[in-house]
């Protein structure tokens, strides 16, 4: 039921993502307006102090950032798709209409 063309498009997005998420981000010293606002009021990001995941910030241990970003992207896409399809099964049970 999941269109192959759509999945291909998603895969393509992931493949090109490190151009933006890694290469260009490093070029501008990636930060968002949220980071600007937080700096102004003295908030501290403690992400690294309380981290539990080896895939922090879309990196994969042992892989260069660019490749790791793509691998992380595929991990994330698969995880979201798996959860989503599981949720879809809930809709398919009693109480749903087509």
């Amino acid at each position, binding site marked *: 039921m999941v269109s192959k063309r759509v999945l291909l498009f998603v895969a393509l997005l992931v493949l090109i993502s490190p151009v933006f998420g890694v290469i260009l981000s490093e070029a501008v010293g*990636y930060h968002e307006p949220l980071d600007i*606002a937080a700096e102004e009021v003295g*908030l501290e990001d403690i992400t690294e102090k309380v981290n539990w995941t080896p895939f922090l910030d879309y990196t994969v241990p042992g892989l260069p950032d660019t490749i790791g970003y793509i691998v992380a992207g595929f991990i*994330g896409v698969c995880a979201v798709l798996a959860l989503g399809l599981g949720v879809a099964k809930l*809709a398919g049970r009693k109480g749903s209409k087509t």
Partner: protein
Amino acid sequence: MHIPDGFLDPLTAAVTYAIMLAYTAFAFIKLRREESEDKATLAAVLAAGIFAAQMLNWPIPGGTSLHFVGGALAGILLGPWLGYISLFLVLLVQCLVFHDGGITALGANVLNMAIIDVLVGYALYKAFPGKYKPVGAFLGGWLGITLAGVACGIEIGVSSQLPYGLAVTVPVMGVWHAILGVVEGVITAAVVTYLARRAPYLFS
């Protein structure tokens, strides 16, 4: 605009978590009662696409960056409940697997991007008739991001150490997202217009 751990005080974190949990429960009840498996499968695929799209961070001259959020698009294509579930799953995976967005900030991030952005997108799209739908989609994408940014500014403003925190964070977040939100609006309108032509069955 994913708020990391350390930005929110316990009360703000708790309140936003409570909102998230209640809304999630309600959305799943709606899912079981009203949604078809086909539409929910579409939601799963859209969620995967939104996850991928969010990984494209565009640098902006001036030293900041933005990424497409997709809440308004999800609300337009899926309605408020499945649209919520799509973004909720994206934010959940981003937080738990990649620590993109703090675990203490999950409630706030969900409120901003899965509730506010989705509802605003959905409402504005519905408000415009027939041939003006692209306008509704653009405004939904733009205002959804702007209001999500304002909400984010409120959450970190009340959590800040400074007594005038809100007076700083709300304008910074609001103005920046009102500007950057134009891109989200354009992409939302473009995608909606394209799908309306190529896959009109999505808009039943």
